[in-house]
């Protein structure tokens, strides 16, 4: 039964290759996307920290999104 599952009655090469190509490609894209997101979050935090307290407060007051990014990025890192 297991050998049937692996060989897929002679179509194993095509079936397993198809599933492998799909899942490996999807995994590569997922990890690359995640790495880019983390890189941008890190750069965002670094730039925010480089601002003076006055500038930082101004940026936080001006944008709700900045507050949200700061909150979620702090959790991630």
């Amino acid at each position, binding site marked *: 039964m297991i050998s049937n*599952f692996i060989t*897929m*009655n*002679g*179509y*194993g090469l*095509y*079936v397993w*290759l*198809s*599933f492998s*190509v*799909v899942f490996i*490609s*999807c995994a590569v*894209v*997922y990890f690359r*996307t*995640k790495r*880019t*997101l983390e890189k*941008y*979050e890190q*750069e*965002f935090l670094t*730039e*925010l920290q480089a*601002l003076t307290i006055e*500038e930082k407060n*101004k*940026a936080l007051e001006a*944008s*709700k*999104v*900045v507050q*949200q*990014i700061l909150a*979620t990025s702090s959790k991630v890192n």
Partner: protein
Amino acid sequence: MFKFFSFSNIYPLIQKLIKFINSIFFLILAIGLTFALVLSPPDYLQGDAVRIMYVHVPSAWIGLACFSVITLLSVLNFIFKIKNFFFINKSIAPIGLLFTCLAIITGSLWGQPTWGTWWAWDARLTSMIVLMLFYVIYILTFKLLNKEELIIKVSSIVAIIGSINLPIIKYSVEWWSTLHQPASIKITGSSSIHSEMMLPLMVMLLVFLLYAALIFLMKYKTEIIRIKKKNFKRK
């Protein structure tokens, strides 16, 4: 209505959706793979090669759906000038390209045991290659052009021209004599696929949709952070 699409409304939603998809994804993936590789029956003609359908068909559908969304949002952006639609499109395009390429590759792997050839320049296959090229051109506009206004204009034009290819892909198997089989699943009318194969196909479609949504949300979130970061520099 379009105020809903502001970053401040969308950003908290993105975070919640990413968490939700991450929490259910692997469970649904395990169910989908069990159905696709173990529980679903082999086809009476194609044997176990039919299992390739469970990755090929959802890939092709998502590749087409992504370009349809890109076209729709490009048209809306032209009319209503909502910049956010451009950022959504920018995040969708790589997903569409990925799934179009996967549909072509898995289609080729399915073609060898069923048609006896890896590739044929028939209408369906060629129109899918054209779709892939439009995705490549669309993505290249972001990489090669500098001014944002110009990028929005050129990419929208590429999307609208490329959308002409969408009905060609859909109806190619009816308009021309092709190696590719006609549609087995129809939204209107009865489908010619058995429920024992339909269920795994739908579960795998859900898996692929969740994955596509996850990548989209991560890319869109990156895009929002990039814009906000750029605003710091301006100040």
